[in-house]
């Protein structure tokens, strides 16, 4: 039986650590390397893994994830291929996998079809950065009974009255966006941020994981003081983008992931 999202967070908590959730652009640099990368991150200590479905217009993402998505699309990677990738990986990795996709590719596949295929592939949940709770009705209906958790966001701009709304709507965990910005921007660990994460934890009965701009083990350890989980995306994708070969990229990602996983254990 696959580990669920709550089980993964509970296991990290039981170890006294924050959960580590690395992000992978599905199909970048190619589908086979993606599979290797998922396995390498799993071995390096990932508690959950976020798998991105490349989209032509990723408006919540910074240059690094944009670029990797564009390269994957140029190489012919489709949403269906990423779902198959997750299906192949789910037999080989322990960490539950959470899909990250913009809404239009889901609509194009058909919402029920997407839910069915994602669940059949073994995905544990879906993160949809351009689908706020207000517009999520049709998707939540389609996903009903699939077992997929739909993860919603809170951000530094989210006022207290709205925090309650997203905290109640989210499933699996609450994704706290560390900054007003896109993925991969420079993260400043100000006291206000830590206080805001604590407020989100008070508002949300589920675990709160923090992402956007987390690049180093030290940043991750700092966030682990207040967060239930830490999400690292662009920093890993960047290593793969800059690597001389997929093998080098896998090694570099494995090393950074191992460092962050270790920092989260100690930081806890």
């Amino acid at each position, binding site marked *: 039986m696959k580990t669920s999202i709550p089980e993964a967070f509970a296991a990290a908590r039981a170890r006294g650590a924050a959960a580590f959730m690395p992000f992978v652009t599905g199909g970048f640099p190619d589908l086979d390397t993606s599979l290797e990368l998922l396995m390498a991150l799993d071995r390096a200590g990932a508690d959950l893994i976020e798998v991105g479905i490349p989209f032509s217009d990723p408006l919540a993402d*910074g240059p690094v994830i944009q670029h990797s998505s564009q390269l994957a699309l140029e190489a012919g990677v489709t949403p269906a291929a990423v779902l198959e990738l997750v299906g192949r990986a789910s037999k080989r990795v322990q960490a539950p996998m959470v899909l990250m996709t913009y809404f239009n590719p889901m609509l194009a596949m058909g919402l029920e079809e997407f839910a069915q295929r994602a669940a059949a592939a073994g995905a544990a949940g879906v993160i949809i950065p351009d689908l706020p709770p207000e517009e999520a009705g049709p998707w939540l209906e389609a996903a009903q009974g699939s077992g997929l958790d739909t993860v919603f966001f809170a951000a530094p*701009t*989210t006022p207290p009255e709205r925090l309650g709304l997203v905290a109640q709507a989210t499933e699996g965990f609450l994704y706290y966006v560390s900054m007003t910005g896109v993925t991969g921007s420079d993260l400043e660990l100000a006291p206000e941020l830590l206080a805001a994460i604590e407020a989100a934890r008070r508002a949300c009965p589920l675990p709160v994981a923090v992402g956007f701009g987390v690049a180093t083990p030290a940043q991750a350890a700092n966030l682990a003081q207040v967060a239930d989980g830490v999400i690292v995306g662009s920093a890993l994708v960047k290593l793969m983008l800059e690597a001389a070969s997929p093998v080098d990229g896998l090694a570099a990602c494995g090393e950074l992931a191992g460092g962050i996983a270790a920092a989260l254990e100690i930081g806890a």
Partner: protein
Amino acid sequence: MTGSPASSAAPRPWQSQPDKEGHFGSFGGRYVPETLMPALAELSAAYAEAKEDGRFQDELSELLRDFAGRETPLYEARNMSQRLGQARIFLKREDLAHTGAHKINNVLGQVLLAKRMGKTRIIAETGAGQHGVATATGAALMGMQCLIHMGTLDIERQAVNVERMRMLGAEVAPVEAGSCSLKDAVNAAIRDWVTNVADTHYIIGSVVGPHPYPMMVRDFQAVIGHEARRQILERAGRLPDLLVACVGAGSNAIGLFHPFLDDEVRMLGVEAAGHGLDSGEHSASLVAGRPGVFQGASLYLLQDVQGQVHEAHSVAAGLDYPGVGPEHSLLKDLERVSYTAVEDGQALKAFVRLTREEGIIPALESAHALAALEDIVPGLPADSIVVVCLSGRGDKDLAQVMARMEDAS
């Protein structure tokens, strides 16, 4: 005289749109990252308040009159009317508005609103550069910092407008992603807004994006239709039979159409068929696309079977956009407005034709609306009245058109 048979009938499905969450039927809405949701709520509230505030409306009317030069004339194009026969063709001269296009109508409304909201920085996207120039103008007027996101392809083909924006004190940020044109500039502007939302207002240039933009931009552009309605009643003593406007994302068209929706008036939106609808290189979202979610709203969209968004093509940079406003999407489905598309070559011919026939150099965007008249007007009943939105002036397009003419000769 101004009353119409439709106004006493049961509510029509296009009335009282959008709903409170910004839905035009199944279109529109707010499909944006969480970071922007509070900013959109704030903007909606500020706009609702301003709309009811007489002082805001007075200030806007004064700016439209004294700064933008409204009302714009309704010009009867007699030479063209005579050649095509059957109809009196009137051109709504948005090309004569300050900065040379209808874009200023929306910009003046939004900069006033931004000032009222305490924002100090203005950003915008631009394709043809007309919205960028209008925004840079509005920011200069209000003393606000201004940054315009523009695709590198458009920077190249609209060099004159880039110079105008810079002269007005705006920074032009080149966008080198995707097709390096309008849709990529919108992505860049949304990312900028997500990052700087506290002090920044994003002036979207058309009736797209998340709620309240499609409604708010429509309201600011509806001045076109309100004036045209009054003018044609004065001039012809009756309402027109047909309205025609080009449709990229759709702001000049909705601005002209909206005040006539409840009247017995036919409407035609003209999209860009680029190299031809079969070539795959066009911008005809309504004619050849299907519904999807893009840049904050549900709308008709050019996309592949996987839901990846196509790069649009048109000789007119201002039409080069793969989506189209949610309200147009609804009006198409309701069959209240007809939509067609004309190719680059037809638009270029119409550009030259109007220049020589009426002494008016139209924007290549507006030339699409003019091109559609060639087929339609000869088939109209005698003594029809047609109002066409001449959305902008064509000085910006001269270099491109002349290069094409040399190629052809």
